[in-house]
């Protein structure tokens, strides 16, 4: 401690740490462009545009000169999984650093060639100019050997005030193709595959095949092969129509033994609290110097299982050449998928090439990895031929990993004056992570159904220090003198669960913010003022104040049937700060009318892209909070289509008004998951404000609210 002034040795930022070679990130091409090779993938969030802006800025080239290379395990940097709103932090910081260094290397090269000092040279759109009309360019100097070296931790980057491209609302690269219906999605680019595959899922997760009869399916014209491996059944055909027809026949003709292994949907909280669990206090603060408690307020909350419910269907293509496998996928982590595919087929990872292509909106660990295994399993029956596999809507909703149901209990101890002296937050939930590539066994769906079935993995959680899982955002943001957070991770997993946008944060913040509103009401304080009184962090206070001001919180008009509520969280307790104010209207139905959101994500790379992410996240949260729950009976998942799993419709979408607090000199933080918790809390509080009742179980459906009103009478 005596040597506290010595600064730590500089380290490489973000993903550059694990992938230090500069040439892996970018290269200059003599024909006049820069090839940028991030390992993070586009999943509908606009990330590639933001990464391109960062590179263009540091390199001093027009953004149009940056060509994005699709990630592939054959050569791209291993940036793990594109998740957790970390791409700007991990990849953006790496690309900024690598680009700045590449610029310096090329500038030195130019100086040598031109016989001048590097500091008299300037770069304009890749042209390097000096005094007396001296000139060269990246393109003239282009030589991959120059970047065939590791990054140096120390490199000068542009000061924030000099940035012009990064920080502007550059239009997204990928949007025109999507607007003109040009092939950009994997579904479209792989459509011309020779063969098409489909899978017959069992009727329920633990069903086993009783009688296999493929006589009628075999007779479908255009059928190429039927693959059966244990409880796994798939077909390959010359057309999608034929593949579907064969699957339909197999569905009729095969019979299964089913077991009632699913919990009681109507007593979810009870089930969650009764399953054997691994229980740990994951965070706490102790301060004995407080007034004694005189009473405890306890509230119990639940959240149902939630589906990804992307509009697109999971899709993949695969092709075997001998023992080498090539897979095209829209998954979030190409290296992770490669590791699990290698496990299933008993191959060295290097025998598998996983190449990314864009898919439909991805909000977490959906079925993208699973369908890649399906493609590989089916393609194995037709060596040398590429097979494209597309999931059905039913597979998408019922068989993708679900976000787990959660039960939460919060107890707040109050002293004589009503001040909060202790706060205990408990959460019961399956883990929020069964991502592939992290263990000795694969986590890919179909691996559980093969003749040599792999053991089923029970979901875990990341440690809280890196964001947590079920316990994400369970740590209160407020300055309570004492608190303890206990996470009960269930050790049984009848419904397969994994990561969905924000993981446990939405439910935890919903619970915390509901509780804070109740305590504010008991204390007779304004909910915004009550929160501010419990917050020391100036950036937290700033977003709440900004949202309140923008929503005219102080002068809001209380009218019959309308209500206003506030919610706040700092995502993961370590990323973007976000506050939301919801306005709801209750008459024959209950509708969220308006959301006003303030967000601080540090340095903003693309303001419109950030607003789009916040707006999208907020609207998705309205859908989760007001409508969504995966339905099931004791045996089968019964949410199988858009009628049995309805999501928000256009006419139900509220107005969303966003204020971004830009801090160009602060670290850029991911924000795509920041609004979920605050919006969920704000809606619950607005409903209470309008109707005087509180619903503790998500979703906040009309029936539940009416029931709460009847009980209150």
């Amino acid at each position, binding site marked *: 401690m005596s040597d506290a002034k010595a600064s730590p040795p500089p380290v490489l930022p973000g993903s550059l740490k694990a992938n230090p070679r500069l040439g892996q990130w970018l290269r200059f091409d003599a024909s006049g462009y820069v090839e940028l090779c991030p390992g993070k993938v586009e999943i509908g969030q606009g990330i590639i545009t933001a990464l391109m802006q960062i590179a263009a800025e540091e390199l001093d080239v027009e953004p149009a000169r940056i060509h994005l290379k699709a990630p592939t395990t054959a050569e791209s940097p291993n940036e793990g999984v594109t998740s957790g709103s970390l791409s700007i932090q991990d990849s953006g910081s790496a690309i900024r650093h690598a680009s700045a260094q590449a610029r310096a290397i090329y500038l030195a090269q130019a100086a040598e060639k031109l016989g001048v000092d590097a500091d008299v040279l300037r770069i304009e759109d890749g042209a390097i100019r000096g005094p007396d009309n001296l000139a060269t360019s990246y393109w003239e100097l282009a030589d991959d050997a120059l970047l065939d070296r590791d990054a140096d931790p120390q490199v000068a980057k542009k000061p924030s005030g000099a940035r012009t491209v990064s920080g502007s609302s550059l239009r997204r690269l990928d949007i025109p193709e999507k607007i003109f219906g040009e092939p950009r999605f994997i579904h479209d680019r792989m459509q011309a595959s020779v063969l098409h595959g489909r899978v017959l899922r069992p009727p329920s997760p633990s069903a086993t095949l009783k009688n296999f009869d493929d006589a009628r399916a075999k007779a479908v014209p255009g059928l190429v092969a039927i693959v059966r491996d244990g409880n796994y059944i798939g077909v390959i055909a010359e057309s999608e129509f034929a593949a579907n027809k064969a699957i339909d026949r197999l569905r009729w003709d095969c019979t299964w033994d089913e077991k009632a292994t699913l919990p009681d949907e109507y007593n979810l909280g009870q089930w969650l609290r009764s399953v054997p669990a691994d229980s740990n206090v994951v965070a706490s603060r102790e301060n004995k110097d407080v007034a004694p408690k005189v009473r405890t307020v306890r509230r119990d909350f639940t959240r149902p299982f939630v589906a990804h419910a992307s509009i697109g269907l999971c899709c993949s293509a695969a092709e075997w050449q001998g023992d080498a496998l090539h897979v095209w996928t829209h998954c979030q982590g190409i290296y992770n998928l490669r590791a699990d595919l290698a496990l299933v087929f008993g191959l060295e990872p290097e025998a598998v090439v996983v190449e990314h292509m864009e898919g439909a909106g*991805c909000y977490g660990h959906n079925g993208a990895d699973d369908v890649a295994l399906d493609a590989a399993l089916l393609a194995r029956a037709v060596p040398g031929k590429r097979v494209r596999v597309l999931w059905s809507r039913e597979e998408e909703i019922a068989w993708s990993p679900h976000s787990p149901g959660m039960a939460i209990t919060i107890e707040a101890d109050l002293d004589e004056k009503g001040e909060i002296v202790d706060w205990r937050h408990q959460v019961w939930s399956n883990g929020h992570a069964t991502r592939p590539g992290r263990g000795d066994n694969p986590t890919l769906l179909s691996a559980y159904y093969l003749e040599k079935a792999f053991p089923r993995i029970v979901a875990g959680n990341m440690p809280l220090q890196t964001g947590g899982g079920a316990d994400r955002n369970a740590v209160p943001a407020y300055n309570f003198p004492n608190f303890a957070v206990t996470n009960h991770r269930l050790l049984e997993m009848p419904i397969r669960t994994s990561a969905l946008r924000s993981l446990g944060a939405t439910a935890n913040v919903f619970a915390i913010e509901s509780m804070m509103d109740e305590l504010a009401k008991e204390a007779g304080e304004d909910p915004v003022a009550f929160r501010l009184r419990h917050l020391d962090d100036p950036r937290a206070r700033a977003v709440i104040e900004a949202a309140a001001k923008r929503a005219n919180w102080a002068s809001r008009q209380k009218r019959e049937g309308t209500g206003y509520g506030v919610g706040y969280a700092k995502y993961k307790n370590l990323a973007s700060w976000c506050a939301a104010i919801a306005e709801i209207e209750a008459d024959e139905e209950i509708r969220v009318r308006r959301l006003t959101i303030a967000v601080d994500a540090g340095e903003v790379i693309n303001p419109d892209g950030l607003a789009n992410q916040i707006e999208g996240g907020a609207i998705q949260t309205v859908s989760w909070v007001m409508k969504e729950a995966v339905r099931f009976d004791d045996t089968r998942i019964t949410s199988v289509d858009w009628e049995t799993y309805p999501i928000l419709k256009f*006419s139900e979408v509220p107005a969303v008004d966003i204020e971004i607090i830009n801090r160009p000199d602060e670290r850029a933080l991911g924000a795509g998951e920041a609004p979920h918790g605050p919006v969920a809390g704000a809606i619950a509080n607005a409903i209470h404000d309008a109707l005087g009742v509180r619903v503790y179980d998500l979703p906040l459906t009309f029936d539940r609210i009416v029931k709460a009103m009847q009980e209150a009478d």
Partner: protein
Amino acid sequence: MSESIRLSVNGKEHDIAADPDTPLLHVLRQNLGLTGSHLGCGLNQCGACNVLIDGHVIAACDTPLWSAAGKQIVTIEGLGGRGNPHPLQTAFIDEQAAQCGYCISGILVTAAALLKSNPDPDEAEIRSALDGNLCRCGAHNRIVQAIQKAAKAMRSEGAAA
């Protein structure tokens, strides 16, 4: 089972040799390479595969090939392209009215039909017209704004003509 069926898509005639029960969407994507219309559910519940058939918005996923024979089909590719964008396409790019974009082609088709029958829809009319089109990313409000913008552009174009 296969027979030849004549299909008119985006103003071009095609003779399709396929089972007449094949969903129109499969034919558009697989036989004609028009992959802009997307399969989202196969159940006529999400609108991702919407096309115009004789001017009506129809889900191509559960429309059998035989029923489209001899009718005028327009897909997203027929609405406009880079050289001749439909005002809706221009407005969607201006407003950055998409996130993942998978639902967008079906939404553009629905919106094109709306603006044909109602050149000056209010916000509620636009939202109600789009209730059969699902979007999961939360691009709804930008989409509505883009349609309003396109409607305005088309009206002033019409007035100028």
